[in-house]
């Protein structure tokens, strides 16, 4: 079996201690037979003059970035850690950890309020992080980036602020059955208050949301479409640009849950023409406790506050207050300053590698994971099969017949140090629709390697054998 390997990208890491640059090889992708591959996944290509031996193969993205992630180099339960639960949360490179440390050691101070030197510096760095997010998703203005605690809070912000003031009885909100609970529950809560109705798009035979059904559900009653960009269970990718277009055609807004896309590929909000988009820092090498809402400026400007408090006000009287312009209007209280700066450092790190390079690598590795999983007897992998047209995200949710995913995950952890997730992955409606209570999920990120996948598959075979021996 052959695999198409990506050409090695040129990536420079902006932090001084990580200013490594690896020259791009000049060849295009080369087909390499697996038998030739040694322990290093290779990108065989023409030689970089720095390497004397023309047969030395350059490391993959996974191998070259792994050293930046201290947490990956440990043993758990007596085995080397194989961390493949990245859809749940990602690990952080030293650059991000250092950024947080530098903040607290060097210039921790409350933002926007103080006059003194430290406060000015903290404010600058905080706002610089906002501009980094803006640039990362190609927003047109940094005022379109609202920092929140995470994507869940961002969706709640839209539901309570935009939703409560724009939805009327009988208005429809379209979602898919594959949405994360964070995309469903806030709208249930708000719909209950205003008398709006939630409508759900089912899956088709390829286990992907049925786009034809989505088009049929759209009507002038639709006020907002809430959809994922990349599914955290099915690994499928929705045609957001098209969906946004169709939504706008009926006068509806679109909110995109980009938690599983922003960390893994280029996302351009202007190109997609979405009204709202949310993501969480902790899934993209940034700290927990920070995420963001992107909203078109005219929309945000029309929205009432969500949380009240300091920073989001203009003037405060005893009987009423006036409110600030976005984004401050939606950032009540002291923000997670260090964390926002950490997110900025994560964006610098990812940009240094390049989102195209990350995506290309993950498509390859994800396909490899999928194909190797198929070697496990009686396995069912959810979502569409990968192909030229269908590029899956680098994750696989699956079930092995007669083996509960929790038992599977427990054994994998206990005996092999492999970290996957088992459960409903915050998608109970989806699991109910698929007819299962739970599934196991392995999810990769750019610092995973072919060896991680091989070790996981070996461990999985071992696990299946073990439980079969008890039947």
């Amino acid at each position, binding site marked *: 079996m052959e695999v198409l390997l990506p050409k090695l990208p040129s990536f420079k890491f902006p932090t001084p201690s990580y200013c490594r640059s690896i020259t791009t090889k000049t060849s295009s992708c080369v087909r390499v037979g697996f038998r030739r591959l040694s322990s290093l996944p290779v990108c065989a290509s023409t030689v970089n003059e720095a390497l004397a031996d023309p047969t030395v193969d350059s490391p993959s993205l996974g191998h070259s970035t792994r050293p930046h992630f201290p947490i990956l180099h440990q043993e758990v*339960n007596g085995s080397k850690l194989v961390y493949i639960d990245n859809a749940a949360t990602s690990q952080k490179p030293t650059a991000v950890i250092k950024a947080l440390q530098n903040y607290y050691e060097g210039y921790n101070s409350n933002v926007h309020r103080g006059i003194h030197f430290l406060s000015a510096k903290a404010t600058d760095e905080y706002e610089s992080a906002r501009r980094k997010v803006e640039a990362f998703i190609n927003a047109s203005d940094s005022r379109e980036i609202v920092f929140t605690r995470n994507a869940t809070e961002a969706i709640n912000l839209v539901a309570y602020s935009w939703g409560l003031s724009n939805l009327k009885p009988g208005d429809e909100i379209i979602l898919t059955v594959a949405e994360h609970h964070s995309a469903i529950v806030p709208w249930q809560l708000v719909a209950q208050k205003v008398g709006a109705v939630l409508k759900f798009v089912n899956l088709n035979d390829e286990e992907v949301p049925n786009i034809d059904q989505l088009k049929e559900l759209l009507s002038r009653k639709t006020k907002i479409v809430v959809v994922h960009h990349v599914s955290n269970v099915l690994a499928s990718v929705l045609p957001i640009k098209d969906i946004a277009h169709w939504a706008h055609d009926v006068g509806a807004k679109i909110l995109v849950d980009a938690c599983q896309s922003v960390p893994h590929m280029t996302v351009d909000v202007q190109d997609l023409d979405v009204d709202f988009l949310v993501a969480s820092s902790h899934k993209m090498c940034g700290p927990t406790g920070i995420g963001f809402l992107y909203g078109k400026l005219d929309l945000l400007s029309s929205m009432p506050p969500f949380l009240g408090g300091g920073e989001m006000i203009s003037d405060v009287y005893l009987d009423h207050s006036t409110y600030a312009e976005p984004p401050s209007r939606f950032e009540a209280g002291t923000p997670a300053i260090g964390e926002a700066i950490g997110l900025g450092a994560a964006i610098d790190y990812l940009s240094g590698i390049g989102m195209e390079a990350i995506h290309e690598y993950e498509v390859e590795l994800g396909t490899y994971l999928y194909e190797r999983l198929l070697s496990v007897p009686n396995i069912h992998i959810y979502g569409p099969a990968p192909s030229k047209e269908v590029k899956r995200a680098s994750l696989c949710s699956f079930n092995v017949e007669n083996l509960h995913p929790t038992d599977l995950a427990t054994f994998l952890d*206990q005996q092999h*140090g492999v970290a996957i997730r*088992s459960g409903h992955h915050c998608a109970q409606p989806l699991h109910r629709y698929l007819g299962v*209570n739970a599934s196991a999920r392995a999810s990769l990120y750019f610092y995973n390697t072919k060896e991680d996948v091989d070790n996981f598959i070996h461990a999985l075979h*071992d696990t299946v054998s*073990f439980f079969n021996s008890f039947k």
Partner: protein
Amino acid sequence: MLFSIPTTTASTLLTLPSPSSHFSSKLNAAVTPKQIQLKLSVNPPLTASSSSSSSSRGVTDKLNNLASEFASLTEPIDRVKRLLHYASLLPPLDQSDKVHENRVSGCSTEVWMVAHIDEGRKMRFKADSDSEISKGFCWCLVWMFDGAEPEEVLTVERDDLVGMNVGLNNVKARSRINTWHNVFFAMQKATQDLI
């Protein structure tokens, strides 16, 4: 594949079925089928038949029994194997009992537990799960508490059985993955409600 434990001796050799040839549990060491020395306390070893004559031995005795049995299994994989053995002994619950009202809340697997108090004022328990490891926990808990007096059920502390918690030894907090604790709490709560 089931295997039986001889009933009469205080210490027995337990031969486990040999796993298939590519069974290797850790990256660095191959695991071969083991003969496990089963060190038990003075009480008779665990069998399926002993589960009915529970109340005369007392919950505390059985708890000590289980605790020392699992403590003697130093390799986590052996605890898993033991639990899977017990899982095979658990009588399945009627489909009619596998309803929402009987679900033990807070578990990442599906666990059902049915409790009632009998004419002799003894607690009767039945439990089942869709996960084999959870079934093993269920069997142990049912074995301990079925037929016990309500007060006995309520006096047991969860920390007494920490050693049984396969692979999750470090999670002391209440959480979804702590099936063991959740079922235990459910049994205690049901007891509390019935008396």
